[in-house]
């Protein structure tokens, strides 16, 4: 049973072999923070609460070196703005 479990785990082939560079996810970056902020600003409900404060916090996190958490905050703000529409 244990061997079977390991077989399940190891069955997945690698995306990149030894020579190919591994694809990188680009959305955990400050650039993407800026892109999200722009997208949020274009939404009509972006100035209402709690969207505004969430966006503010997201921008702040991105600027202080936590782009991943900042992106998550901004995404929440965008979702909230879409719901408010």
């Amino acid at each position, binding site marked *: 049973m244990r061997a079977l479990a390991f077989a399940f785990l190891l069955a997945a082939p690698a*995306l990149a072999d030894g020579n190919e560079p591994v694809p990188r996810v680009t959305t955990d970056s400050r650039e993407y923070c800026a892109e999200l902020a722009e997208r949020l600003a274009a939404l009509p409900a972006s100035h209402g609460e709690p969207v505004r404060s969430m966006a503010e916090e997201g921008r702040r996190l991105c600027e202080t070196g936590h782009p991943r958490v900042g992106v998550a905050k901004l995404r929440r703000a965008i979702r909230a703005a879409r719901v408010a529409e």
Partner: protein
Amino acid sequence: MPVPPVPLDDAPAGWAALMRFLRSAGFRFALLFAVVFIGASALFALVLWYATAGSLDRQTAAALRTDTLGLMERWREGGPGALSEAVAERLSGDVENTAIYLLTGPEGQRLAGNLDRWPAGAEDDGAWITGIVERDGSRVEARIFTRDLGEGYRLAVGRDVEEKQRLRALLAEGFGWSALGAVVFAMAGAAVLRRALENRLRPAAMTARAIAAGDLSRRVPVAGRRDEFDRLGEGMNDMLDRIDRLMEAVRGVSDAIAHDLRTPIARARAKLEEALADSGDPDSLRAAMEQGIADLDHISRVFGALLRIAEAEAGARRAAFAPLDLVPMLADVAEFYGAAAEARGQALSVDLPERLELVGDRDLLAQAAGNLLDNALKFTPEGGQVRLTARAIGRDRVEIAVEDSGPGLSPEDRARAGERFFRADASRATPGSGLGLSLVQAVARQHGGELVLQEASPPPGLRAAMLLGPG
């Protein structure tokens, strides 16, 4: 070079003991239990895995397929621009931060999405790949589905499945520990089962060994649980009791043969010796030879009777069974003995129905009925009464009874009258071998019945009834 097999007798003691253990029924039962237990556990684990880890995979695949279909719809509606916008919109709403998208143009250039390059091994249309992507400086596992959109455009839709893989690894670890536990339980259960089986079988095995060593008095102790082992022990005990009785009977017959045949053989020998000493007189020589022949005839009759009893008891003559009407046969026997009864001033009365059908051996039944009449006439005094009756009892049973007005038998003698060579003390003076009623009993048993001896009504006298057919 092949190693020749080592014969068990020449093998070292440890090896022989191991082979004995592996061949034992206890080990095989235990192994069967362990295999069934582990098999059931494996089946349970597979179902659980399918329902948990498998379900996670299926959910991811379904989400990717649906997402891709939606994006392809946008591609058909608005081309690369609409699809790029749709990808950007989906990425902006990905609160879970697991979405992966990549749209590339005819030159392989990135048009939209959050992967910096096309994943290796995903060149074919409709390819599913699972592998590693780099996210925020660390490597995570992702599942990606790709489609060719035509005109050189390609779309990759994926999910970061690191969390799910972590959950999957936890499940796998849990299954691993469970499997280890199942193996330990299976082995422990197998050992307990083997020990229990061995403990329950040990008394029977020890009894069998003691009996094989000559102690026929030993019996299997019964635990009183009324289970299969108790039934086996009771069966063995019944078998041993039966063997004991048979051996006792064989011993009794051997003793009786030695005792009862010694007299006529000794008498024949004495007569022949006497004739040899007095060989001058032809008359006494003739008389001695006639006496010797008579004694040898008697011995021959005894052996003939013993042989017939043995045949009846062994059921060797069952091939001679045929449907017959007992009435004419019994009438013939009564007529044969009627003359002897008349000569001795005895009254032989017969009460038979019109017909009495039975499936049986005509010769043996006639011999048995003759023995009953012969016995009755022998022990009934002059002027006494002997009565032969026959009747049907129910649908399958027939009774042939002979009742006399002789001295009868005590209850103790009646209980032993069916034994070979048994003669009541009062009948020692009467000629006979003590085999007549033994034959009647054997014939009755061969016909599925029994011999019943009772006091005559009215007493004194004996009523000997041969019951034939199942009761």
